């Protein structure tokens, strides 16, 4: 039972003026802190009689019932959170400590920011709505990523033994997504660990690396390595690791971070291709091959060119003191397209293997 009987109250934040807190010295507020005008009114002032604009059909709009009591509760909560965030902005202005963290806290409760993030494409983001230049959106993406995709990635890396077969361990910090733009039928983001036809992987993948932490995007360089730890080493009766593709000195922006053919074409020579792309050409009857994409933050530019395919990734990482921040992987198995890919790349004809169970030991 609500107990205040006598005090007559008025809701402090009337629905008319709803603007979130901002620093006093702010010139122009980022566009991404405002919800699209189509939804803004119903988000801040409540769903009108016509129904919520987020529903497409008129029928469902008419049938929609907003929960009662939400209007008042939202108004008061909005005012409360806004005051708190104004306090945080005042704190930022008075001291420069922990600035990014305070900025995040000041915006993370803003319903418009949360709306923009929840209902727009997070991967192919439109900076109008999701602007990863703003730390709050990076924080939201981090939470979203950790709630699912990061777990999925680590599960696959562990189950498919990408760790420790390539690198010993890995602390994921940066979401990496993969797409094969050359292929017009498999034109989707690849889930880590998918088995792809050699036809799809005939040309290099396009890699999206979304930095989440506060780094200097002007100077921070990244290395991308694609390694295949499942190449047959017949002489030693074992497997060896080869490098399929390598890029270094890649610069990434928070909003423009998709390494596509277009970007590589238009590049002014700053990106160093460590070694050109060798597509997956698995041998007949050998087990599925894994292709692990590793993304590193590099402390200094790397301008070497690799001549050998055989590759010791652990040594390379150690020599260049690289810091693994992101990963992805796909798998590839022999199919009828392999011969075509071999022909395209001028590779020799594939070897056909058969399994020997017997006594032949590893050398």
């Amino acid at each position, binding site marked *: 039972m609500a107990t205040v009987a006598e005090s007559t109250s008025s809701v402090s934040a009337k629905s008319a003026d709803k603007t979130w807190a901002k620093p006093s010295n702010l010139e122009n507020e980022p566009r991404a802190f405002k919800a699209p005008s189509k939804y803004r009114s119903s988000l801040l002032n409540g769903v009108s009689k016509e129904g919520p604009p987020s529903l497409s059909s008129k029928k469902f709009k008419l049938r929609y019932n907003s929960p009662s009591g939400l209007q008042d509760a939202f108004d008061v909560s909005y005012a409360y959170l806004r005051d708190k965030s104004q306090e945080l902005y005042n704190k930022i202005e008075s001291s420069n400590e922990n600035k990014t963290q305070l900025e995040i806290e000041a915006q993370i409760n803003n319903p418009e920011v949360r709306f923009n993030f929840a209902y727009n494409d997070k991967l192919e983001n439109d900076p109008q709505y999701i602007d990863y230049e703003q730390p709050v959106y990076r924080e939201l993406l981090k939470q979203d990523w950790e709630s699912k995709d990061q777990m999925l990635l680590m599960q696959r890396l562990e189950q498919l033994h990408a760790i420790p077969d390539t690198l010993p361990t890995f602390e994921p910090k940066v979401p990496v997504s993969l797409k094969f733009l050359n292929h017009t039928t498999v*034109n989707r983001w690849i889930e880590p660990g998918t088995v792809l036809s050699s036809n799809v992987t005939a040309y290099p993948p396009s890699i999206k690396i979304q930095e989440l932490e506060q780094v200097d995007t002007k100077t921070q360089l990244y290395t991308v390595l694609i390694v295949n730890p499942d190449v047959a080493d017949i002489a030693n009766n074992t497997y060896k690791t080869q490098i399929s593709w390598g890029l270094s000195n890649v610069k990434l922006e928070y909003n423009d971070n998709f390494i596509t*053919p277009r970007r590589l074409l238009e590049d002014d020579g700053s990106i160093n291709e460590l070694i050109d792309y060798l597509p997956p050409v698995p041998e007949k009857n050998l087990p599925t091959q894994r292709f692990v994409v590793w993304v590193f933050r590099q402390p200094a530019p790397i301008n070497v060119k690799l001549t050998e395919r055989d590759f010791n990734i652990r040594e390379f990482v150690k020599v260049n003191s690289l810091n693994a921040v992101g990963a992805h992987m796909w798998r590839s198995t022999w199919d009828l397209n392999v011969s075509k890919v071999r022909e395209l790349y001028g590779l020799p004809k594939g070897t056909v*293997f058969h399994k020997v169970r017997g006594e032949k030991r590893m050398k």
Partner: protein
Amino acid sequence: MSFLSSTRALGLFKGLSLGPVIQVRTATKKVAGSKTSMKDSAGRRLGAKAAENEPVKTGQILMRQRGTRFYPGENASIGKDHTIYATEPGYVRFYLDPFHPNRKFIGVALSPELRLPTPHFEPRVRRLGYVPIEDEAKASFEEQNLKRKDHLLRPTILKELQERAAKRQAIVEQYKEQLKTIVPELSDNELSIAAERLSNVKNHLKNGVTLPDAQATVTSIHLQDLKLQNKKGAISPEEYETSNSNYLSLIKKVDSSVSFDNKYQLTKFLTPEARQGKLDELEAQLQSLTEGKGKDSKKQLSKVLDMSTLITPAEKKLLHAKYVKPLLPLNHGLAKSVTKRWNYEKKRVEPLA
């Protein structure tokens, strides 16, 4: 036996003739059970079947046991009676694993100098276990040998591929014709390269890729192909240089003079401003058509929208919603019997007006 119980017993046999009663003297002492102590089975020959560091083959039994006194370690497995056997040829190791402090393991090290367990963060040591088929004929036979499912599917796939290639060829031809009118100065060779390129770009566009991205992807693939041809010696370095630069100049010319309409046909290149102008024209036309009311005007409106090759599907949807969409009556899509409606304000039934 009491009287009561005996009568009850008699009741069970109601209807049967009673024979002479035979007295049975039951045992008053329990019979002493005899203990069989000679029931030992023969030994089950349990125990280790291979010693530490002993070379073993695949499938060789390392340990017979009851229950899991030992657990299978690296390159070893366990059978249904808990027998541990080798899954790879190598050298037997009895070892402890810090991750399972209460277990003892039997594993197989793949080479004599290796210790088990393999350090946690080191790469796994793996044996290939496959050898190449040396005999050419056998190898090619094996290569052609597909899984049953793939084998059965192959003819349909091939057929479909052929059909697709034919379709593609047709589009290329079509584009060639269209290109001839739009960019007449192209040579035959250039024409076919440009048409090929445009058909590839079209495929990407259909997937929702933006035009510059699609063009860049197609360009990169073409250049990559040229590079590969040069690398494998199909074309000489000079040829490579010339065709590379030729292609780049060609696409500059084509991309600046050709664009796609909404049905993926080639049209003359439209600058964004020109396109906007045409769109405005279209909207003005639609506006003028809406002024004349009636069924015919709606029909005309949708016809104009359908005929326009300029607008994207999204724009078409918007314009349709703006100009063509009829204001549906309340009873649209309802059964004919529905003649009344509920008035929520007045809380009563009203005729459907």
